[in-house]
């Protein structure tokens, strides 16, 4: 694999010529039937590596929403993880090691395995039926098509059966432990600690001792299978990464986002209301929040997205930190409601976990194609602040920032994530919660003018209107979607007033630019800037690093705030000879940049539902700079 560093020493054990190769990083992919527990295996391998101190990044890939029949290609589920002894940013391009639990998994993934990579197959799954289901004419284990790889063939099913026979589990449950057998084998092959996995099993299934027994024995059996059969002539080691000191956890994007909302509510000293309707890939935020009612969280599973956004508007009026979440199709349904929240100038977070569109599209695949929709997806002039999370852990921070803006400026804020951020995971250095900003805003408690309470009397600095909640004596007022008279908030059809209010609302949002961080550019004045937003961060960063290591000078900047832009963005983009904007869409940020700054930026666009490979960005930069690899 491109510029991977390997050092090999003789094995330590006297009665074996086993060697251990130490790598700076390695990419492993677990692939099997959705029934084979590959997500669990991957997550366990990840946690073990995290506990061991590696840096890592993961990329799970689920089958489409519908569960496909066992053994078929659409049924294949996989989980890729990259572990390293330095801070990496993506789950890697091509795997060094592939675990294929059945022919379909092999068929679907083998093309990605790098030549010379290690392939672990569950031989017993390679029978007539499964081969047919996967579309194999001949058995690849026999037709020599796999010679470019180091194959480890394992009769995983009988070995697992054997291993768990005394555990107490029986029937079709027995084979459920297959994934732990595979995991054990990989723990041996990559010299992973075993405790994190066994501990997890014990904690997770504490009420099912037989399951604990089965999984642990399968895990051990896999580990021992490696030792006893010396399944491979070399095992691999990846040293702990030298990450900045701190306490780390391995966090998934949707979970980090849920936690960020909880943190924001605490930082705002407000109760959290989450009104939503389930949709892939946003549902897990609901699932996570509904587990934590002891934080005083109220989750409302509405009858549809229109009700969800409506309930959030009501909750905002009533004095909650109101959040509504969905993905493309559901956000479309919320459009009219968001427009009301904008007109009523109520604080609210609208979370859009983007998936591949249009229409139902490819619900389990990531895409960044809702940026312009976030900017302009409402009738009338209704500009909204838009922020985007760039990685799983960044979702925590971005959620707090979204809440800060919503509350301080009394406006709905669109918070963009995507399937890649939402389901990916990475080590997260836990923040010192004491550093959380105080984002609380005082409710209005007394009239703000001699003529009583003026619900649309704007704050001199922020242009925000006061937030007076029901139950407050003397501040009774009515909000609504009809145009409001400045200050009084009464219905008004006065032409000058409509102009004034339109301008005020626009100005309020534009002015937020003065209250956000300047865009930081990483670099030293190269000729080319790679500008990104959202989940492309990892790929872009890694590509830039790789280019620099290769002596190619290139600068990088990544946007968290899409509207308004950081105030220095124009000056930044104008200061480069060339600006490259990689996006997982057909070119959306680039249209904003061109319209705002008349800069002839270049796009690198991908609409395949698969995140950028580092190499794709690297190649584009090289092409633009005319420096061949």
């Amino acid at each position, binding site marked *: 694999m491109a510029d991977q560093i390997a050092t090999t020493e003789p094995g330590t054990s006297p009665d074996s010529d086993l060697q251990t190769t130490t790598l700076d990083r390695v990419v492993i992919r677990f692939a099997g039937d959705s029934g084979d527990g590959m997500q669990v295996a991957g997550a366990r391998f990840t946690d073990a590596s995290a506990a061991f*101190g590696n840096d890592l990044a993961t990329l799970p890939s689920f089958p489409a929403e519908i569960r496909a029949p066992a053994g078929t290609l659409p049924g294949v589920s996989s989980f890729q993880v990259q572990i390293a002894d330095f801070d990496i940013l993506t789950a890697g391009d091509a795997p060094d090691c592939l675990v294929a639990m059945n022919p379909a998994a092999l068929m679907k993934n083998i093309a990605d395995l790098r030549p010379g990579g290690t392939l672990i197959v569950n031989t017993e799954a390679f029978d007539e039926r499964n081969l047919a289901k996967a579309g194999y004419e001949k058995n690849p284990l026999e037709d020599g098509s796999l010679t470019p790889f180091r194959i480890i063939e394992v009769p995983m099913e009988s070995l697992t059966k054997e291993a768990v026979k005394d555990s107490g589990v029986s029937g079709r449950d027995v084979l459920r432990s297959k994934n732990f057998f595979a995991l054990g084998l990989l723990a041996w092959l990559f010299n992973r600690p075993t405790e994190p996995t066994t501990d997890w099993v014990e904690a997770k299934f504490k009420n099912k001792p037989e399951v604990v027994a089965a999984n642990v024995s399968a895990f051990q059996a896999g580990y021992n299978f490696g030792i006893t059969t010396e399944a491979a002539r070399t095992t691999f080691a990846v040293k702990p990464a030298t990450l900045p000191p701190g306490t780390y956890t391995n966090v998934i994007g949707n979970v980090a986002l849920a936690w960020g909302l909880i943190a924001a509510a605490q930082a705002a000293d407000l109760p959290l209301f989450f009104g939503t309707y389930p949709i892939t890939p946003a549902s897990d935020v609901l699932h996570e929040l509904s587990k934590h009612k002891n934080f005083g969280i109220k989750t409302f599973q509405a009858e549809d997205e229109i009700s969800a956004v*409506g309930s959030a508007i009501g909750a905002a009026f009533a004095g909650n930190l109101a959040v509504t979440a969905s993905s493309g199709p559901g956000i479309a349904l919320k459009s009219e409601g968001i427009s009301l929240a904008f007109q009523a100038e109520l604080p609210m977070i609208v979370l859009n976990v983007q998936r591949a569109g249009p229409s139902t599209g490819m619900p389990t695949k990531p895409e960044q194609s809702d940026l312009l929709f976030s900017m302009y997806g409402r009738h009338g002039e209704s500009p909204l602040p838009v922020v985007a999370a760039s990685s799983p852990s960044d979702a925590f921070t971005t959620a707090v920032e979204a809440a800060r803006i919503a509350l301080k400026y009394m406006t709905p804020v669109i918070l963009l994530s995507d399937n890649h951020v939402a389901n990916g995971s990475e080590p997260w250095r836990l923040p010192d919660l004491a550093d959380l900003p105080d984002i609380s805003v005082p409710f209005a408690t007394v009239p703000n003018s001699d003529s009583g309470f003026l619900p649309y009397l704007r704050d001199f600095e922020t242009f925000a209107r006061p937030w007076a909640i029901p139950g407050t004596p003397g501040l009774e007022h009515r909000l609504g979607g009809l145009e409001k008279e400045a200050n009084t908030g009464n219905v008004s059809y006065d032409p000058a007033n409509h102009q004034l209010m339109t301008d005020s609302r626009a100005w309020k949002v534009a002015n937020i630019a003065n209250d956000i961080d300047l865009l930081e550019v990483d670099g030293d004045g190269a000729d080319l800037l790679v500008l990104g937003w959202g989940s492309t961060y990892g790929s872009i960063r890694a590509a830039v690093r790789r280019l620099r290591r290769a002596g190619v000078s290139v600068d990088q900047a990544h946007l968290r705030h899409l509207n308004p832009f950081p105030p220095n963005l124009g000056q930044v983009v104008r200061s480069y000879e060339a600006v490259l904007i990689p996006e997982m869409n057909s070119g959306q940020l680039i249209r904003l940049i061109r319209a705002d700054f008349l800069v002839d930026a270049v796009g690198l666009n991908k609409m395949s539902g698969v995140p950028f490979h580092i190499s794709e960005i690297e190649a584009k930069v090289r092409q633009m700079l005319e420096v061949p690899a």
Partner: protein
Amino acid sequence: MTTVQSPTHTRADFQTDQEVRWCPGCGDYTILASVQNFLATLDRPREEFVFVSGIGCSSRFPYYVNTYGVHSIHGRAPAVATGIAATRPDLSVWVVTGDGDALSIGGNHLIHVLRRNVNLKILLFNNQIYGLTKGQYSPTSEEGKRTKSSPAGSIDHPFNPVSLALGSEATFVARTVDMDRSHTTEILAAAYDHQGTAFVEIYQNCNVFNDKAFIQLTGKAERAHNRINLVHGQPIIFGPDNEKAVVLEEGEARIVDAAGVDPGQVLVHDETRPDPSVAFALSRLSHGPYGPTPLGIFRRVSRPTYESLMDAQVAAATAKKGPGDLATLIRSHGTWTVSEDSSADPAPGSPNGSANGNPR
């Protein structure tokens, strides 16, 4: 607006400085007066009331009631009100809506709020027409109705709002008519006392686009013949000389000559039956204000409110796990520490670590 709250109110306390903008003669004026007068009788501070509406003539209502209010978007008032009521059980939340707002575009939110029993008082102003958009037929317009959008007559079979509400698991269902202010006030009081969603259909005259739609129930000559008053515990009889009675035959509610049946057979109204079947049968006595039509409370039963159940879960979780601690939460998936010398020191296994684990 900063007047100190006096223990008891006058109607004026619930009026705003906004000019009321309905057509002269509109039934909405009458209902507004009934509601304001009723609110004034309650010894409850103004700021504890919230009126939420959608879009329509009727939905202008909140602008004229000096409490908190939201004039939301078409059909969505129940959703907005749910967000308020679910998070603020201390408030009295009212929904004002129209036959188009509640039953056409807003139908889904209505049926769901009814089954959830959110503590809302829903006043549906049914004028059997789209007033605000200048006179198209609505889901309660009679078949064959000629309007701007149905010059050859409507071909839509209308809803019976009471039947629909009962089919949606409503715990409180009533019907009244704008002109009868004392009856309206009775119903408002009962709705206010009800714990849960109170659904009140109010027949309301649109004198511009659907004048006299309710004449059978409001006309001097007609009303005595057509008003079937449902009174809890009372036999259901009506007519100028109580000559008509309602009986149950073969599981259906039927109108008979009182003389023809012995008094014991006459159906005695019981709003509190757990089974909504009889209430439903009563709702089928009429399919619009065209002949004998029941007014009053069809059903009034108790079921826990949505917000009480929500609060109970929060309380239970807190009792069980203690108030949430963020620092603990973000460590709950297992942690490890990287110290200065950057050697990793593994933490104990991480329970609950498979947020994207295998669903099987």
